[in-house]
């Protein structure tokens, strides 16, 4: 058991270092960008009509003349205390903005995560088990087409079909416009199209990977032996069991792709989630918010891969029984 704890501790330290690196890189990139927070937030016209003293005061407020290293360290100091600063665009604490946006996005992400995992695994198994026959060719053809299609384009396509032509699903937003408190059903209806867009893209990748793994397993010695012994339910007994490990890794690794995809998809569907906030923060030079979103999403992605690593240890008997410790 102690080697599992050690393993987890090591992973956590690694994750913390990675987060530090991500925040520093993001900070340096934003610092090097030509966007001037003063101009974007106060407005060029307003800035032009201000007195030099007023500008100096504002510059001090935005911290424009403090050295970059000092600003990063002070950001880091507050961040460690749980304070990510105040968003310039929303005039509210960054954590509050992120929390609210994330809770909206979570509908979408969770929906897409579950759907893409289930669909991808199912299609991958179907294709792999029917290698070379028409279900395999069909699934592979569709998946290759989808994975070479940009997510936002797929989103537009779904939007045109379901919202514009068929008019059975809302065209965007997370809740009906001006509709007071939204019901669960309404929220789901609004999350459906963007969720579907994300799921289809994610499922295609997972299906293609799962299919390859299934084919590898089917070519293995132990499947040959199972067949030689006249075993039934080989797919359930052996293939599923051995595909489970890579499937778990894939599923948790897909969190990163989902979050990345959601930035574009939320834009297409005017879905007021974290992805959309990231775009606004970028365009509006809202450095504290952008930095906050970068760090929080990076933490989500790393958290996903950490979960995968830990689950791996729980599923794989070779690790569970301590073979990895030797």
């Amino acid at each position, binding site marked *: 058991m102690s080697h599992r704890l050690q393993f987890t501790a090591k992973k956590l330290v690694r994750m913390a270092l990675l987060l530090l690196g991500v925040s520093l890189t993001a900070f340096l990139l934003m610092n090097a960008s030509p966007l001037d927070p003063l101009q974007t937030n106060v407005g060029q016209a307003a800035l032009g009509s201000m007195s030099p003293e007023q500008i100096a005061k504002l510059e001090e407020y935005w911290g424009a003349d403090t050295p970059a290293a000092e600003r990063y360290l002070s950001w880091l100091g507050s961040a460690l205390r749980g304070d990510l600063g105040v968003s310039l665009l929303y005039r509210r604490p960054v954590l509050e903005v992120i929390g609210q946006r994330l809770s909206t996005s979570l509908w979408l992400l969770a929906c897409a995560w579950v759907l893409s995992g289930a669909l991808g695994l199912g299609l991958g198994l179907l294709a792999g088990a029917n290698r070379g026959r028409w279900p395999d060719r069909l699934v592979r053809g569709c998946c290759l087409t989808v994975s070479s299609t940009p997510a936002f384009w797929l989103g537009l396509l779904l939007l045109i079909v379901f919202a514009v032509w068929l008019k059975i699903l809302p065209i965007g937003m997370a809740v009906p416009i001006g509709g007071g408190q939204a019901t669960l059903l309404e929220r789901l209806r609004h999350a459906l199209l963007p969720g579907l867009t994300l799921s289809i893209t994610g499922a295609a990748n997972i299906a293609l990977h799962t299919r390859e793994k299934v084919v590898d397993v089917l070519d293995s010695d132990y499947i040959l*032996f199972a067949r*030689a012994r*006249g075993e039934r339910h080989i797919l359930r007994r052996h293939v599923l*069991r051995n595909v489970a*490990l890579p499937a778990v890794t894939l599923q948790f690794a897909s969190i990163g792709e989902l979050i990345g995809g959601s930035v574009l998809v939320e834009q297409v569907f005017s879905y007021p989630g974290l992805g959309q906030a990231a775009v606004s923060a970028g365009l509006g030079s809202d450095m504290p918010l952008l930095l906050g979103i970068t760090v929080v999403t990076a933490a989500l992605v790393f958290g996903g891969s950490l979960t995968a690593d830990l689950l791996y240890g729980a599923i794989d*008997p070779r690790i569970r029984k301590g*073979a990895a410790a030797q």
Partner: protein
Amino acid sequence: MEPILSVEDLSVSFARYDRGLSRRSLSALRGLSLAVEPGQVLAVVGESGAGKSLLAHAILHILPRNAQASGTIRYGGASLTRERAEVLRGREVALIPQGVTFLDPMMKVGSQIRRGENSPDARARCRQVLERYGLGPETEELYPFQLSGGMARRVLIACAVMESPRLIIADEPTPGLDAKAAGRVLGHFRELAEQGAGVLFITHDLTLALSVADRITVLYDGQTADTVSPSQFRAGTGLTHPYTRALRQAMPENDFL
């Protein structure tokens, strides 16, 4: 005695796609014949790549997808069709494969030996066959990676004798074992033969084959070169094929010849 298994004129070829997409067939076995009698161990000796595993897989109808087989395989006097093989596999005809990679790495040994059956009967039988090969009931709870080479071989034999097979096909079951462990494995085969089963013992190790088999079939170039008894082989009588004669010359104890 009527053979339990007879293979006549077995050929196995593979479809290969060359440059320019012309389809060419590549033959691995061409006109192989042999027969296994009940109560006997027939050793099939051939070098690596001679097609020994293909022979085993052809008998069980588990050849790779790109393989084509022709010829006659008869089991218990009747033609061994795919449908019949599917019924007999794991019941009357058992394969003993080469090593631990033939066990599912994610499944406990006990469950694999029982093929997932959990009836008290199956459990009792499983413990019984494990005990027969000197393995305790705790072996059931182990995963394949926890087995030593010798244990894995005994587990694979236990898999084969869960039901009482009448034909056992052992495909190189000894590599990686020291002489003593290999000797024990071969002893188990002799014992199974003495109880009436026919054993097809596939190996590239001529010395092992000579020590355990009732008859030896030498495979060369996808064909049967010679089938003789160990004493005939040692004496050098009845060897018709130049390859078999060369094989005999190359044996350590024949150095002086």
